[in-house]
């Protein structure tokens, strides 16, 4: 592993991201129903306006990894496209490393790196290393720094075993690792990753997570990550921004999200007396009963913690067996998405 902070690079700009009251609406034509409607739409198209992102405000500090989460169609990718300068916001303010992305696309391009899931920026017919050389020239990376960075990426991602293979012949995991290297070759202070590990096996996922962690902790890069992989979120992100239907639902730490949406648990008890009468306790409800097996769950806003609940159940009932179930991050996010959507 490479030791020391910023060994081969020199991140120039401060990589903060600021987003204020960001809104994006799309206007598109739609067909009217029926054959007559279709003909009418040809002459007089029916225009509809869709709001993809509405009044979103958040910021990311330099050297921070923020997970931008939300269900499909929540507005995550649209937000990232505005931050990368591909999309022009309808209203609101965006600043990435001190640059307004859509106003200064080329300047912004030097400050950012991006990987969009399974979409590769590498040239399909060329060996990956040839793609790196092309990008080196496009970004004007000096030869010595280029070599040092390639060496560093190789050490972290084991690229040299396949970087002379044509991209079309690489596996998904190999290709995404090359894409990550390609996105960071010019040493950008800010990195946007839109579902970078989608479809990868667990070993490669872990390697990529290690790489990202290194980039944030050791190299001081600011990373904005979107993913549906909650293991990834729990391993990499301390802070999470949750959006749904284009609106910001929550901006906080994982702990805060757990407290808000995931303070849920189940206590599964087997009663010593199958006929014993069971009723709810303060803040504890009977969720299910089948003979001696009773499932207790939280009831209302004053529900106790899982450990308090366990204690109370044992105090009130004679049990022969008892087990706890706490919500994992996936359950928490499911509750958050559903809660936000309702």
């Amino acid at each position, binding site marked *: 592993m490479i030791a020391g902070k910023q060994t081969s690079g020199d991140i120039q700009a401060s990589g903060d991201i600021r987003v204020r009251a960001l809104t994006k609406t*799309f206007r*598109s034509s739609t067909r009217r129903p029926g054959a007559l409607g279709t003909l009418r739409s040809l002459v007089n198209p029916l225009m509809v306006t869709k709001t993809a992102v509405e009044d979103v405000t958040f910021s990311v500090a330099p050297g921070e990894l923020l997970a931008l989460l939300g269900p499909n169609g929540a507005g995550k990718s649209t937000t990232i*496209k505005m931050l*990368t*300068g*591909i*999309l*022009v916001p309808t209203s609101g303010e965006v600043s990435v490393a001190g640059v307004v992305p859509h106003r200064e*696309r*080329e*300047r912004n*391009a*030097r400050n*950012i790196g*991006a990987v*969009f899931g399974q*979409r*590769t*920026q590498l*040239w*399909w*017919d*060329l*060996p990956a290393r*040839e793609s790196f*050389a*092309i*990008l080196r*020239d*496009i*970004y*004007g990376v000096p030869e010595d720094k280029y070599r040092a960075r390639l060496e560093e990426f190789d050490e972290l991602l084991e690229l040299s075993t396949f970087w002379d293979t*044509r991209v*079309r012949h690489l596996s998904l995991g190999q290709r995404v690792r090359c894409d990550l290297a390609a996105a960071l070759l010019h040493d950008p202070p800010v990195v946007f990753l839109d579902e970078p590990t989608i479809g990868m096996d667990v070993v490669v996922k872990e390697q990529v997570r290690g790489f990202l962690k290194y980039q944030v902790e050791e190299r001081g890069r600011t990373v904005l990550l979107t993913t549906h992989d909650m293991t990834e979120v729990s391993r990499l992100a301390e802070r999470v921004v949750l959006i749904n239907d284009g609106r910001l639902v929550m901006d906080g730490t994982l702990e805060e999200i757990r407290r808000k949406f995931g303070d849920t648990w189940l206590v599964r008890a087997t009663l010593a007396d199958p006929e014993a009468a069971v009723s709810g306790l303060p803040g504890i409800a009977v969720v299910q009963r089948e003979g001696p097996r009773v499932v207790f769950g939280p009831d209302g806003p004053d529900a106790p913690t899982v450990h308090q609940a366990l204690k109370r159940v044992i105090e009130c009932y004679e049990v022969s067996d008892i087990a706890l179930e706490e919500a994992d991050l996936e359950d928490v996010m499911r509750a958050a998405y559903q809660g936000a959507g309702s």
Partner: protein
Amino acid sequence: MSAVPSTWRTARITPLGELLAPPRIAGAVVQLTIQIVLVTALWRGLYSGTGGQSTAGLTREQAVSYAVLAVLATRLRELDRYSGRDTVIQHMHFGTIVYWFLRPLSPQRYYALRALGDQLYGLAWAVVGYAVCLAAGVIQPPVSGGAAAAFALSLLLGQWILYYIMLLIDQLCFWTLRNSAAMLILIFAQNLLSGVYAPLWYFPDWFVTLSSFLPFQATLNVPLSVYVGRIPLADVAPQLGLQAGWVALLALLTRLVWSRAARRVVSQGG
């Protein structure tokens, strides 16, 4: 800060991809050879019944030279980008077009560099093919040194026009997401109206008049006619002026379309 000059490497992408795939090169050699043999046989056969008389102002040798040069010229724009998932329509389809807008090299310049590389590589093929055909006596040398120079200039302008026409068709993808139908129509129109299928001189007057209002005849018919002497040197200047006019007009149009395309990539780029 503008992109550094070393971005020339982007021009090598398609040629390098082809050079790394020997079967593709072998295929191109076979295809070109077959086309040249067939075209030569066709035009020699057509002229065999004329008793050596010239037709439409072209002798047999002029007609064969024109037709073979037209085949060689097609190599200038027919590099295979499709198998490399590198056509604009494929970038739109796979959503990878976004990367064109995320680099410190504008999409316009990137596209132009790629096209330049493709056309220079195609030119190398055409030059080798030309040398072989000239040595084999299939085609005649230019009628004069002046004709050779005028041909070179006219071919350059013609390829420039062709670049803009191809660019316009690719830009269409930003609005339609599909350009295959337009591409088929374009290739047919280009081949028919530029003289690839047959020299324009054989077509009726109304057809020649009609094609004079379109840019296609300026891409190939003008330089090839200059080469074989069908357009005399004295008449070359207005033709070059017309070609330059098309270049200027199409440059303005494609520039305008690029600025609008940049706003479209967002909704269709995935």
